[in-house]
């Protein structure tokens, strides 16, 4: 209760700041600036560049697409309404565990995502199970749970805007995103 009150006070304060800061925040809207972390927004920006050179089509966050060929794999795909990690992804996840064990100050967000079909709130639950599935592997390897935060977007941040099964496969994913270097 105490904490909630504090949060409310902070919120009001932030709102006042927000209004007064409105004219200065435009450049801060670009999450790429001043950030050296590989969170998914950086990939958003990357996808934009790719689009400008004609590689993409339509609106696309690209975090699935651009990371698919990344040397260090940050995106793991799932089957419909399932949260079972594919065995092919295990080596990459073990490598993440090794990194987190070697960098105990590093912090990550595991994002869970689903395809757009079905119910939005159920998909938020499903996305969290996907993030949890990755987290469980990391924790089983000895990673400190405090290094991991989970954030399920459900179907609210799609990788692909289309409605083909191919698009849906790109949507059903968990993303490993570093938020603090170790």
């Amino acid at each position: 209760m105490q904490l909630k009150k504090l949060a409310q006070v902070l919120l009001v304060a932030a709102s006042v700041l927000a209004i007064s800061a409105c004219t200065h925040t435009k450049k801060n809207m670009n999450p790429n600036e001043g950030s050296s972390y590989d969170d998914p927004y950086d990939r958003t920006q990357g996808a934009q560049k790719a689009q400008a050179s004609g590689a993409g089509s339509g609106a696309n966050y690209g975090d699935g697409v651009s990371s698919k060929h990344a040397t260090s794999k940050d995106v793991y795909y799932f089957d419909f309404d399932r949260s079972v990690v594919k065995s092919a992804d295990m080596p990459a996840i073990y490598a993440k565990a090794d990194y987190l064990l070697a960098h105990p100050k590093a912090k990550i967000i595991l994002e869970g995502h689903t395809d757009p079909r079905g119910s939005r709130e159920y998909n938020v639950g499903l996305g969290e199970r996907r993030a949890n599935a990755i987290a469980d592997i990391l924790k089983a390897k000895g990673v400190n749970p405090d290094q991991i935060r989970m954030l399920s977007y459900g179907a609210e941040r799609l990788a692909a805007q289309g409605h083909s099964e191919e698009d849906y496969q790109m949507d059903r994913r968990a993303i490993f995103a570093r938020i603090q270097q170790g």
Partner: protein
Amino acid sequence: MMRKYIAMLCMGIAMFITSSAFAILNLELTRGIAGAVPIAVHPFPVQGDMPREDVAAIISNDLRNSGRFKVYGDDSKKTDTKVVGRVLQVGDNKYQVSFQLVDALKDAEQSVLLTRNYTVPYSELRSVAHHISDLIFQQITGMRGVFSTRLAYIVLQHLPNGQTRHILEISDQDGYNAKPLLASYEPIMSPAWAPNGRKIAYVSFENRHTAIYIQDVATGARRLVSQVPGINGAPAWSPNGNKLALVLSKNVSPNIYVLDLMTGQMMQLTNDYYINTEPSWSPDGKSIVFTSNRSGNPQIYKMNLADRAVSRVTYEGKYNARASYTPDGNRLVVLNQDSGLFNIGTLDLDTGMFRILTNSGSDSQSPTMAPNGAMVLFGTWYKGQNVLGMAATDGSIQLRLPARNGEVQDPAWSPFLS
């Protein structure tokens, strides 16, 4: 982090900056009722300054888009039922609107079914027109009209820089008078109207945390209700508005809780390792239905709040989710899938009969019911865009509501507002 937060709030806190006279949603009747009632709505002559709002046109539009009327202009030969009226300027900013609903078949004494006079400021001409539509609708169908209700929904605007702006917006039931309540570069979802129509609860991902807020519709003031680690989702008001059912995962598994909004006391209703979500109250407030995958796939379950007894409600189809009761408590509206598309259907709780309402040729989701129980509003896809659709709960009518600018999803129909 703080700067990012400020940037996101920037869009959000400056509310009610625009109030467009143009509809953001464009109703297109795709399938009307077979036995639509023919009615003639004659133009209302205006005395005084011509107002921008055409009262007769608004009434025509309302009745036509209800799917239950075949509306004619002043060609009274095609119908015996007609609406006549006039608009008279009676002051600087005041108009007197009068109308009559007339049945030409009845003899002279009985021919006037309704007659009313209203004196309103200029700004209320639209709402008085909707009110007249409500009266006509009730007189002829016997059912309370919903033309004075509002919608809440999420608009998505895909910006050239690749980002998406998410805007929680409300509008009149016909898509006019759209007003933004919150805008963010992070998702906003699951808007839910308080039973008195004055507040909306919703989920916001701002600052990359999920949180449930309750926002005052008139003032824009908002209150943080829940922001614990993991999921904060699926807010659902109790019928008396004193409690909010919601979903918290606390990083383990989504379970359903009830928050007493008066005392702040939180009570946990489900406690297992499955997905439990989308609580929705029965009209008498004695039970909730919710979605759970405890049987392997998502299905609807009912919990009696007195003894916490849980029973499974849906068996038809392999995916049933997001249930809500019809206002009479006799049926559930659910999102259903068996092998093909996701559809909106109704389940009769007495007979167990299940009926599909949508056949739009693409997946549907997020059903929300009109307060008279006659129509369901839902999200669907049309020409590659998220649009809203409407269907009658008896399956007779379908409408499409594309957004004029951007995509629109996750709707919530307001309760009766007057």
